């Protein structure tokens, strides 16, 4: 493993394994843009949810089939309850899926946990690799990527343009029982600045179809660039 992988192992993967249960209990409301993206899919569409967490998006559209994956086995086990979908343990950098096969993929609040710019681009390229290429007769598969924004001065965190983008964010896990103490875990985040997610998508070989800002996050809908 290189230094970045070791760092992410300690400051992202191990933390989610520890906080999985509490984290999941706080994540139940789908974000509107994600909900809309999933609801607009054709019935029978098959796609991926990369970094599915507790799987809160799996139930949005009952007419599509989703293969969800997470790097944390504890979170993947929680996501398993959402029928009729499938959940596996996988790494965003090496997805166990064929090239150019899927109709869609979502990756919500995931790429901001990757600790170098090159690896974030590589992760997005890996997601793009799995969706259908567009041609003159059919449109390509669509991906939706969400990442935490640097510009969120009205949020509880209060960060804004000019602040450091690579930070540790504490998660306070509530006490599990009367004789347990609350415990603090620090997770690594890269806060995306305005326009940065679009640049990463472009570098990864994606063509940006739509983009915007919602609930302290930047989001982009993209499709693989076609050879021209």
């Amino acid at each position, binding site marked *: *493993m290189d230094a970045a*992988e070791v760092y992410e192992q300690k400051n992202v993967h191990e933390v989610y394994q520890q906080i999985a249960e509490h984290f999941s209990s706080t994540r139940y409301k789908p974000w509107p843009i994600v909900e809309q993206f999933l609801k607009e899919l054709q*019935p*029978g569409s*098959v796609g991926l949810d990369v970094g599915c967490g507790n799987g809160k998006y799996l139930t949005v559209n*009952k*007419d599509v*089939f989703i*293969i969800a*994956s997470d*790097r944390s*086995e504890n979170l*993947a*086990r929680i996501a*398993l309850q959402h*029928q*009729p979908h*499938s*959940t*596996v*343990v*996988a*790494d965003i*950098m*090496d*997805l*166990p*899926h*064929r*090239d150019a*096969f*899927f*109709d869609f993929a979502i990756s919500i609040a995931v790429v901001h946990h990757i600790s170098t710019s090159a690896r974030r681009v590589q992760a997005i390229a890996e997601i793009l690799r799995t969706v259908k290429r567009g041609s003159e007769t059919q449109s390509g598969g669509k991906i939706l990527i969400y990442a935490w924004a640097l510009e969120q001065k009205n949020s509880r965190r209060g960060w804004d343009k000019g602040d450091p983008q690579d930070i540790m964010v504490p998660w306070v896990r509530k006490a599990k029982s009367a004789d347990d103490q609350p415990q603090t875990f620090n997770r690594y985040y890269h806060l995306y600045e305005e326009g940065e997610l679009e640049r990463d998508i472009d570098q990864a070989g994606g063509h940006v179809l739509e983009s915007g800002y919602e609930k302290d996050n930047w989001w982009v809908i993209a499709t693989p660039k076609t050879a021209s």
Partner: protein
Amino acid sequence: MKVITANFVTCSVKECKTSPNSFPLHFHDAELEMQELDFQPEFIRNVIPRIDWEGLRVTANELGFPSLPETKPEGEALYDEQTLKDLHRLLLETQVMEGRLICGNCSHEYVIKEGIANFLLPSHLV
């Protein structure tokens, strides 16, 4: 892990993606469990066109199911209730709880434990 999942996964190793031998992954020592799920004919009918039929035939055979028809149900056959029920049972209700999935190209083994397949690679294969 549902049987349908095997139709939508392959080896995590980058170099294997271009090899036809990497799909489908091969089940070994599979322990099956049936889990009853609501039968939704519309859902099965919609998903069948996205199934790699050859791959599913290999998987079903490895898991000890009776042979599937040689060709994928299409048109009228997609409205045959028994066909849809059989596929619902195979694809969604059949769970592989324990076992291994092996890549036919690089021979790497992925372990299935308590119903979840783990596709993380050891560091020397990344």
